[in-house]
């Protein structure tokens, strides 16, 4: 980095290369709780293959994955567990809020449902739908890939701010 804080040619080219690698090998952590879990499985299966975009290796451990796909309802009972799983992932980590229930509580505005996971963790992509069609999920994945390449996700911005500070 140069004296005024801006990145040099080589750092930005390196960043771009690293981000290119990152976006084409996202390792999802499927946090599927309810109906959206089935559509997530449909997206990962052979008809709407998500492995075409590099997101094939599903790892059920937060230590080994970088994309947290929250598919399904998050309860007030489940919320601390979601936070725990999110905290255990290492940077850079991306969050996809899959479905209406994860994005905003969906059709369930009741005493036991968290009205959107963005009250708890920073979300990068929201996929609307109840449940979203697999085409919508793939669209969201491509949007997330664009964000990762441009360094616009919450996690990457946080890392950059930490580096510059």
């Amino acid at each position, binding site marked *: 980095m140069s004296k005024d804080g801006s990145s040099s040619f080589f750092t930005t080219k390196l960043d771009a290369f690293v981000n290119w690698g990152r976006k084409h090998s996202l390792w999802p952590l499927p946090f599927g709780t309810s109906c959206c879990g089935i559509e997530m499985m449909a997206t990962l299966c052979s008809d709407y293959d998500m492995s075409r975009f590099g997101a094939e290796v599903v790892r059920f451990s937060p230590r080994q994955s970088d994309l947290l796909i929250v598919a399904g309802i998050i309860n*007030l*009972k489940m*919320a*601390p*567990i979601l936070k725990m799983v999110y905290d255990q992932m290492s940077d850079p980590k991306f969050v996809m809020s899959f479905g209406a229930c994860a994005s905003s509580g969906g059709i369930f*505005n*009741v*005493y*036991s449902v968290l009205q959107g996971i963005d009250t708890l963790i920073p979300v990068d992509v929201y996929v609307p739908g109840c449940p979203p069609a697999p085409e919508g999920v793939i669209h969201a994945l491509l949007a997330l890939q664009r964000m990762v390449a441009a360094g616009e996700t919450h996690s990457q911005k946080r890392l950059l701010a930490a580096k510059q500070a």
Partner: protein
Amino acid sequence: MLEHIELWQSQVMELKEAFGESILEVRMPGDFPVDVPVIYLEKKHLLEVLRFLKERECRYSFLSDITATDEQEEGLPWRFEVVYQLFSQISKLRIRIKVRVAEGETVPTSVPLWAGANWAEREVYDMFGIVFEGHPDLRRILMDQRWVGHPLRKDYALKGFQIFTDSQSIDPSWLK
């Protein structure tokens, strides 16, 4: 369903002969807007009646459901109705038993008859606050253990959120 009315009537007659004084009311389909005979009982003979129905000739041995209803109405001495739905695999008929309780009153548990009643009664306790005496392990089941209030009561708000910052811990004594 009205074609089974005679069989039901004979079963209810048998029940009345055995437990006449505990049966408060019987509503038969046709006279009342119900689909199966509904028998309102006093709670002290609940287990005997259920055992009678389970083991006698009518053999209502399949416990379909245990639930409760909050009939919060002014001026009534009772508040909740605990509902038992039974099914007979031999005669292919159903019957419903109801026990009326006031707030704070307890109901005898039917776990000695059906082991599956364990969780159903825990759910009734969790949702309504009705205590089942003699239950081996009466704790909340759907809600967090630290939840205050009973959600399905009529005075509990639909959006009554209660936030917890950590997940509930398990007591080793709960393992069976």
